[in-house]
């Protein structure tokens, strides 16, 4: 698959916004790009100020500008227009591809403000971990929360754990590497594995992590697996060693789906995982770089 910007959401096509475009039948993507440098926050302001904006179901934001400007102004604009964006169910902050900007250089802001301002929001996707905050809040509409980073600050994990999302079904966090902002340890991840924290949670992703082996060991026998249908540890540095804990776990066998795409598993281990029971995706396995005889494992998105 060619990695692409979001093309479909809530059953609607996602298309780059052109001034004069119709509202309602499509979801628009607004942002600065190599081919179209015209985007500024004022473009977004005008887009949201249109009376027809009350009909938009979702909004996708690309790059705020050429030089990695912050999403803070964009977040503030969305919050300011929130009262009349009554149909809005999805916000994607940072639909930015690998070659457009380094994920760890995307300057986010406090996305907790969005969750507080849009109580009916169903899905929030955030890409980029720099300056990312999630001021703890309650939101009973939210069912899907996805935060992709090349390196997540431990503080953000704490903030997520302090939120009240009674209807959250899918939680996906890309933890990343300490070279690009990951400041946590396993101890920061464990509170998220408390059963009952998000009572409706059925799908958990702890992706792109350089502590994937530790996570696999810790999660293998935790009660959270009893409520999950899907576990996603893809894009990390999971090796056979970590996979052994998953294979040995009775609870893992009870999952419907186990995503281990793009780690560092050997064929033999992949075969054993495939016969565990859950539908396993273990494609795209990497081999470590070897420098001076020492293997070096790296996460999928670490710049």
């Amino acid at each position, binding site marked *: *698959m*060619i*990695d*692409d*910007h979001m093309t479909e959401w809530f059953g609607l096509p996602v298309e780059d916004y052109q001034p004069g475009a119709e509202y309602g039948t499509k979801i628009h993507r607004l942002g600065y790009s*190599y*081919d179209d*440098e015209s985007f500024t926050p004022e473009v977004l302001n005008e887009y949201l100020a249109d009376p027809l904006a009350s009909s938009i179901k979702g909004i996708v934001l690309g790059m705020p*500008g*050429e*030089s*990695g*400007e*912050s999403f803070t102004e964009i977040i503030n604009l969305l919050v300011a227009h929130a009262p009349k964006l009554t149909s809005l169910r999805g916000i994607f902050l940072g639909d930015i*591809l*690998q*070659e*457009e*900007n*380094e994920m760890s*250089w995307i*300057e986010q802001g406090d996305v907790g403000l969005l969750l507080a301002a849009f109580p009916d929001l169903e899905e929030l996707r955030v890409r980029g971990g720099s300056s990312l905050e999630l001021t703890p809040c309650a939101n009973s509409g939210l069912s899907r929360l996805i935060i992709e980073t090349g390196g997540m600050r431990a503080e953000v994990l704490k903030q997520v754990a302090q939120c009240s999302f009674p209807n959250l079904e899918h939680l996906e966090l890309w933890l990343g590497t300490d070279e690009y902002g990951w400041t946590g340890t396993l101890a920061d991840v464990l509170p998220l594995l408390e059963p009952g924290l998000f009572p409706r949670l059925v799908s958990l992703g702890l992706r792109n992590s350089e502590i994937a082996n530790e996570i696999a060991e810790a999660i293998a026998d935790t009660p959270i697996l009893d409520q999950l249908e899907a576990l996603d540890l893809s*894009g990390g540095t999971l090796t056979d060693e970590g996979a052994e804990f998953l294979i040995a776990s009775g609870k893992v066998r009870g999952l419907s789906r186990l995503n281990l795409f*793009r780690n560092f598993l050997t064929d033999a281990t992949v075969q054993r995982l495939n016969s565990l029971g859950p539908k396993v995706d273990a494609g*795209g396995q990497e081999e470590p770089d070897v420098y001076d005889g020492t293997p070096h494992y790296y996460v*999928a*998105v670490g*710049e």
Partner: protein
Amino acid sequence: MIRSPRFALLANPGSRRALGFLAACRARGLEAPRIIPWENWLRPGFDPATAFEDVDSLRIETPAEHPEVERLLLRMGAEGCLREGLYPFLAEEDCRLLPDDNGVLRYQRQWYLGWHKALLEIDAFCVRFRLRPMSQPSEIALLFDKLATRERLEHAGVPIPSAAGICRDFDDLVSKMDATGWNRVFLKPCHGSSASGVMAIARDARGRWQATTSAVLEDGSPAPGIRNSKQLRRLGDPEAIRATVDAVCRERALIERWFPKATLNGKVFDLRVVVIGGTPAHVAVRTSRFPITNLHLHNQRGELQSVIEALGESRWKAALDTASAAAAAFPGCHVCGVDLMIGAGGSGQAIAEVNAFGDLLHHELWQGMDPWEAALACWKI
């Protein structure tokens, strides 16, 4: 009756390219080419008349990867380089004492000026001896100057990334990035080959810098040179980036805007398309987890097939059309290696490079022929 061509081959004997071409001639049932070693050709006093006797076609292969040939070309470029007075210069008499390079990038402008002079002489001999070169020497010379190549492509309406001209040093890079508003650029040595000295450079609003390159600084000098380590790495320290940029710029380098490339399952890719006689023939996919793809050539058909499937028929056709258009801008080149980038998300294309000697693709067959055989198959005299 159609006569078989009789080739002269200007090359470094024993090189993979020379052997590949000889094997292709045998496979096509042609008379063995008359081999003219660069080392002989470039030596003062060489007589081209005997070399070109009784041949009608000329195949030119790269003079690279041969220390003595490098010294001879530097000697030829000495006068021009001295006259320009802009780039590192090695006096004619010192050229023969130059030790082997071991991957060091040095005297690239002088080398190019020598190479350019040699090629223009060959052009003149081709006219004099009624010889048809497979690739016009003057066009080969043009393809060894990235700035001139860009101008040719731009004039032909072929999509290329925007450029901000020749970069003098890091400070100049910063002022050009300020002036254009580009925070993501490629720095490319004008006369380099493959990824030698190429840097992918990004900065952001918070003053962070990042550069990806295979160039490493040679230690122990106030103006250190650089060496191609053949391994890509990331630099984040602005001072290290400054020193490396300064060193690359000493050899003449240009700034291009960073064209965001497509990725396939998280890996950047581009395509090397060998265009032969106007037809896009062999295609190799080059993938990397870094923004520079040159060092990672993947020739498996499977890989290409997955790219074609991912792009879909119309975008694949558009890509091949762009590659053909790029090659058509060099009508004197029977064979061109076009490096084609697909835009992020899969739409749009731009040309990264056009290579005069871009047809060295191992094990890659098109209609059952390797690139040398394919080039001969549609060569008419």
